[in-house]
């Protein structure tokens, strides 16, 4: 097994005061191999966005390690981390807010290039900007315009171009489709899939949309209230979900086909606050299969088969059944 490109070990991120912190990320571990696309799935309070930002050191972790090719990123000095950023990039959720409204596209992309000394000189830079725009499906003449002249989907493409400008190996895609119309989403999905293959990118794909995750990701981590519930390859997770939360999540996402009958009893109750998470298994307050033991200890993330891990004391409930 080669060294993972990115490895997260026992990552914790707490916000706020020390006595009652918001436990946004509470002991999360996973690894991403080079060329792999890992999906981070969860609802509000799952910590998925926080993990994305913490991995890139846009937010500083409270505890745990984030390793890039085996080296702890936290150990890097300010200047070295700055240089490292060319390898680790991010695409944001909100295409309307992620571009400086006062800068032309050429300036936005040019800044990315000059920050890391790429393609110096006016001619080389302009040429590269044109290339980047064409790579993402826009045109070279778009460089002279301002962000507000573009639609949401186009702005998202510009965001992708900016991330690609610094020639990254790893990209965190933080809900890149949520703010886009359905018909535009598939355009951007195709773009990401294309680029991923052409440029051998490794991706951490954060989303709440399970259908997109199933389409784009190789493996999936399911999060709830800052903790990992289940990890598996995409095929395995969607065919044989073992954690009650994963099963509820899959059942609750309506499939666009009226002939598929969903016999689904929705989960009761609300997502608890990350300031005051339930003791033991954080999912137990809404879990239809919770028993006394669930309140006593945080269930360990056990391996049930190759590459498939579940944090649930009752996982054997489903290991014999086919997926509902």
């Amino acid at each position, binding site marked *: 097994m080669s060294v993972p490109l990115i490895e997260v070990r026992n990552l914790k991120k707490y916000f706020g005061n020390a006595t009652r912190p918001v436990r946004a990320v509470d002991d999360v571990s996973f690894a991403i191999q080079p060329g792999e696309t890992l999906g981070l799935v969860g609802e509000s309070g799952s910590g998925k966005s926080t993990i994305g930002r913490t991995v890139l050191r846009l937010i500083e972790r409270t505890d745990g390690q984030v390793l890039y090719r085996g080296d702890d990123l936290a150990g890097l000095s300010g200047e070295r981390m700055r240089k490292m950023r060319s390898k680790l990039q991010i695409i944001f959720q909100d295409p309307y807010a992620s571009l400086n409204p006062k800068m032309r596209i050429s300036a936005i992309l040019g800044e990315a290039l000059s920050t890391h000394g790429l393609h110096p000189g006016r001619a080389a830079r302009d040429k590269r900007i044109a290339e980047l725009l064409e790579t993402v499906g826009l045109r070279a003449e778009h460089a002279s315009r301002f962000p507000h002249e573009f639609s949401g989907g186009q702005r998202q493409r510009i965001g992708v171009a900016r991330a690609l400008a610094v020639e990254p190996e790893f990209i965190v895609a933080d809900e890149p489709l949520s703010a886009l119309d359905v018909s535009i989403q598939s355009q951007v999905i195709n773009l990401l899939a294309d680029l991923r293959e052409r440029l051998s990118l490794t991706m951490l794909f954060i989303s709440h949309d399970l259908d997109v995750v199933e389409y784009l990701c190789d493996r999936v981590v399911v999060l709830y209230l800052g903790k990992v519930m289940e990890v598996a390859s995409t095929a395995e997770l969607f065919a044989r979900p073992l954690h009650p939360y994963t099963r509820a999540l899959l059942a*609750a*996402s309506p499939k666009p086909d*009226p002939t598929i009958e969903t016999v689904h009893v929705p989960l009761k109750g609300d997502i608890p606050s990350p300031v005051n998470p339930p003791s033991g298994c954080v999912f137990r307050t809404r879990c239809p299969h919770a028993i006394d033991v669930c309140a006593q200890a945080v269930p360990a993330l056990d391996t049930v088969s190759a590459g498939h891990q579940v944090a649930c004391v009752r996982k054997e409930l489903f290991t014999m059944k086919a997926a509902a």
Partner: protein
Amino acid sequence: MSATINATAPRLVVENLSTSFPTEDGLVRSVAEVSFSIAPGKTTALVGESGSGKSVTSLTLMRLLPKTANAQVSGRAEFGTRDGRRVDLLQLPNEAIRQLRGNELAMIFQEPMTSLNPVFTVGEQIAESVRLHKKLDRAAALAHAKRMLDLVEIPAAAQRLHEYPHQLSGGMRQRVMIALAMACDPTLLIADEPTTALDVTIQAQILVLMRRLQSETGMSILFITHNLGVVAHHADDVAVMYAGRVVERANVRPLFATPQHPYTQGLLACLPGKAHAAGQPRPKRLFAIRGQVSSPLAPPPGCAFEPRCDLAVAACTQAMPPLVAIADAREARCVLRSAA
């Protein structure tokens, strides 16, 4: 329980609804020639993306467009009231529409935080609506409010009555919105993207709740959304909107099984959830509708979807195709389908 004299007459019939806004850069036709109907006890979904005009349609029907917008509205919206009259919502005087709104005609919005008044308790807000329309006194109104909170399955309803909106979670607030809407026993509920801002598991709860309320009270629902998964399982009839016009109307199953308009076909084809049947390998590329919706200030000369349509022919640029019936209870706005 709502009673209608003629139980089979549609609850709402919208005919040729058009809403235009004069702007600095020209007249924006947000909604044009929109027609659909909703049967009693049924759910009609208005499906569309940005710029489709679906939200403006619902605001126009409820007469909630801001005055400063100087909207130009034309068409008819025939509504069957509880006492059997049929009134045109667009022509009613302000006082009459106010008596209907929040009463027989209720609306819930996408963002419950901004639709609820932050300085009043939840109970007070529901009670206010009840007192206004049902003329109950304060104590009776509050008791009714508590019954409403129970109806929408809010736990510890008696306590919640005295809480403020910011103390509740997003899902709870949406339930309160529904309670507020249900308080006066509406016959038509307009739900404008009610679950879009909610988490998936909470969305499932809210949708099941709305279904249950509908079957218990027999109210009709106009469900506005862009989420085709929700439409597939919670709508009886569907009207697909594009650039301000209805481009296809059908019952839900035929629509998903055999979509007729190229836009509907494209929309369904580009969903990753429909990309492949279970067990088959993932396709390399998703279907994508090329381009984006045209600016309302520069509409294409003929069919609005033509610039993005793979099936377009010469006739598509010449005139806007009319919405024509192509089969039983099916309509499509496309020259390729109307020869039937």
